């Protein structure tokens, strides 16, 4: 392009804006994967170079095959034998349920079924680490009431739960519980659909340290319980999701500044392994989950 050589500042800004627009993602956008991984590396777990390379290639193909608008790398669940790499595909509407894909080697991706409540109930009894084998079946003995004629007695039934189901429900739980997005990154139009805010320039430093400037990336649950006084101060186009401030138990988020105050990192203590990063005053933000896929139920004792 002609404009580059003597660098009109506007042209440069334009190009940066365009690139940043594609970067405005919730999990990690495939296009900005390398930068995102580097910024989220403070938690210690990341991806090895070969995985990164294969991810970049395969996610591009996934986007083409499934006709997604954007493909985001969600994270990695550590299993005993093998790890699951998870990606999510996004369509136009940001808050619509996303399609989840998993892979064991970052090359071949399989679509996971959407999560249902029944699945969640079934898999809530399974504890322990993930095996790493999607066809592994957990056995769980339950007492079920069996009606035989007129007698009602309890029998021990062995229920088998597939690891795939468990994977689906864990990913869903994590997304619902701890997926984070900064305030102002999305805005809601009066007609309903939620769009990416292209003029989002990042939070300022003082805002970035407060939990109230981050939202749960899901349908709001607590918003309607707010008093009218609180709602009066909200901006309906920006504040349409629950903020992290009122999470129970209080203190289940760890907010830290890293890299000499140039990066704010939120780590969830309820699902250890979830890291959200944001570079204040820039458009970079995202989250990644690298962990064992187990909820930390001991949290109240640990605070």
């Amino acid at each position, binding site marked *: 392009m002609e404009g580059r050589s003597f660098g009109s500042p506007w*042209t440069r800004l*334009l190009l940066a804006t365009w690139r940043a627009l594609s970067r405005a993602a919730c999990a990690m956008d495939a296009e900005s994967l390398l930068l995102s991984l580097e910024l989220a590396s403070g938690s210690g777990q990341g991806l090895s*170079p070969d995985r990164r390379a294969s991810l970049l290639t395969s996610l591009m193909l996934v986007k083409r095959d499934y006709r997604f608008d954007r493909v985001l790398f969600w994270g990695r669940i550590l299993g005993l034998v093998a790890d699951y790499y998870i990606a999510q595909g996004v369509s136009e509407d940001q808050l619509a349920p996303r399609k989840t894909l998993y892979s064991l080697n970052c090359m071949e991706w399989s679509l996971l079924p959407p999560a249902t409540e029944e699945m969640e109930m079934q898999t809530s009894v399974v504890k322990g680490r993930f095996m790493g084998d999607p066809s592994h079946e957990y056995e769980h003995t339950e007492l079920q009431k069996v009606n035989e004629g007129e007698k009602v007695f309890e029998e021990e039934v062995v229920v088998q739960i597939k690891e795939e189901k468990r994977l689906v429900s864990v990913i869903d739980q994590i997304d619902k519980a701890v997926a984070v997005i900064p305030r102002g990154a999305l805005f809601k139009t009066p007609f309903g659909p939620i769009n990416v805010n*292209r003029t989002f320039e990042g939070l300022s430093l003082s805002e970035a340290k407060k939990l109230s400037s981050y939202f749960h990336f899901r349908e709001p649950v607590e918003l309607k319980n707010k008093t009218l006084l609180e709602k009066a101060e909200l901006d309906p186009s920006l504040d349409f999701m629950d903020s992290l401030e009122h999470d129970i138990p209080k203190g289940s988020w*760890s907010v830290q500044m890293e890299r*000499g*105050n140039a990066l704010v990192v939120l780590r969830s203590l309820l699902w250890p392994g979830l890291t959200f990063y944001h570079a204040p005053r820039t458009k970079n933000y995202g989250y990644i989950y690298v962990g064992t896929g187990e909820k930390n139920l001991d949290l109240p004792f640990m605070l």
Partner: protein
Amino acid sequence: MGDPPPDPEPPSQPTSSRRSSQVSERRRTRPSVAPLVHEELQQIPLDPQILRGSREALSNQSNLHGWPQSTSLTPNENLVFQAEDSYVNPGFPAAVQRQAYLSEGRLQASQNASLMLQQLQQGEGNLFQELESAYQEPPADLGQFTMYQREDLPFSQGTEHGPYMTDDPTLQFSPSELGFMSFNMELPEPEPRELAVQNAKAYLLQTSINSDLSLYEHLVNLLTKILNQRPEDPLFLLESLNRTTQWEWFHPKLDTLRDDPEMQPTYEMAERQRALFSRSGGGEGEQEMEEEVAETAVPNIMEKAFYFEQAGVGLSSDESFRIFMALKQLVEQQPIHTCRFWGKILGLSRSYLVAEVEFREGEEEAEEEELEEMTEGGEAMEAHDEEEGDEDEDKVMDVIPKPTWKPPPVIPKEESRIGTNRYLYFVCNEPGRPWMRLPHVTPIQIVQARKIRKFFTGYLDAPVISYPPFPGNEANYLRAQIARISAATHISPLGFYQFGEEEGDEEEEGGAGRDSYEENPDFEGIPVLELVDSMANWVHHTQHILPQGRCTWVNPLQKTEEEEELGEEEEKADEGIEEVEQEVGPPLLTPLSEDAEIMHMAPWTARLSCTVSPQYSVAVVRSNLWPGAYAYASGKKFENIYIGWGHKYSPENFNPSLPAPIQHEYPSGPDTIEMSDPTVEEEQALKAAQEQALAAAEEEEEDEEEDEDEDQDD
């Protein structure tokens, strides 16, 4: 309304001439530009105020874009740009035109703004054409005198009205200049079209409720900006430009002289980290290089970070480098023999970077003695106080019964360089911050640390509030966890370490086993595939911590000399009641295959770092018991690291210890229970009974005497 303005050239030509840098076309358009120039120059003097006003607005925007603060700089810049270019393409309008939208565009904007105003007034539809023609104006002028010429215009040129200017002065000035109305002109009746235009403009000039900005001014700013910058696809960017312009109006950029207060801590941190990168001492460069190239205690962090990165573990490379510099700083500050980056422990508000360090011989003892003296001094004071208390007690008549409870014997901590205290640990929150030394760990701290589960806050002096109460603050808890993690997860390939040559100590008391190892110079390295296949190829090279909290067992009932002196009497009561079993743990250098399983789950997971290219892979072992502990081995190199929250994995939920059972009350007996005082009747009854008994006794005595008398009489 006057005649329509002359149409010097069709619109296509100016665009093409603007886009192309061909000289020939420029020459063609040159003469045609001249008459237009004349007109425009005439327009301008009529609106010097507008010019200045819009230029000010422009300069505001220039500020926001980081351009020179005042427009007075622009002519200088113009000069600069054109001076630079002049010897490249002297006098070529193409060159001038190329920079036009860099330097002169700013000036153009002001002209454009004024033009737009006038066009609106005149209701002309050829807005763009006018703008384009205005745009071509600078090439026609001789570069550096452009600015000054224009400024001179109001004074040099006559106030000739253009053919399309009406006599109504109010239509030529913006509302802010209404004070300049000269009333000697006749005011013709405005035609309906003009009236419509005036109404439209008045509507646009309404200021909004929230701000002083009117839509009109905003549009002026917006279009000015677009025309200055000429982005590739303005329609697509219109919305974002809109928002940006609005935002900029209300958020002028701060003075360049004053620092942004929000960024203060960031800059401070950067300064501190910069200090890391400066080499120590000034001095001659060559000598220092030689010294530094020689062996230092600082390990090659970057190499290890590279291998860990292959495994997908570790911090980013620039962070690793900063850690390396920080370790180097530590080595310079303290007398260190060997040093290793142990890992990172995450905390709530801050994280800890941990360095495992061994002091040089003799250095550490000096510091330890100081610490011991302080503690001993404290103890002496306490003993003194107790003695005084005892004396006071003796003086008091009542002897307070001494409690029979004795505190459980304190298990002595291990000496430095032995067992759990083999290494010293330094922590810092971020590279650049000072390193702080962690105290040695005591067995009781390890025992209590096993019972509690708390997050680290990031501040070493924070209290650890838990049940059972942890003896110490966060620094002690951190040290205890570090000790546990080291003992459980520091592994090396089989054969890397071997025992020393001192045989014959196998029959030591209690079979404590060997506790020292050395590097095996003949280690050949184990192939990566074998390392991954079997856990027997890895061994622990740190001692296992016994349930007691130490690596070597100590009988807690063995009295030390002091205790024998003080409590002889009590001892005899205790002896022989408790016999403590000796605790034994797996000896040093046991392979990982001997490790206990967690709920049918293997405690270690081994992988190749890259399955696609196994020949260059690294063997990576991950602990399932302490999530976050990793080890890699490749050829003759290996390393351990821990990055995590610092807690053990437990498949079941954490059960905090129950509080101790309620203590029994004192045994109730007649001497402790309050008896009720006897009533008067009872006392009288008692008295009566006593008198009766007395009388009966006297009668008996009398009878006895009579009997005796009788005997005597006989």
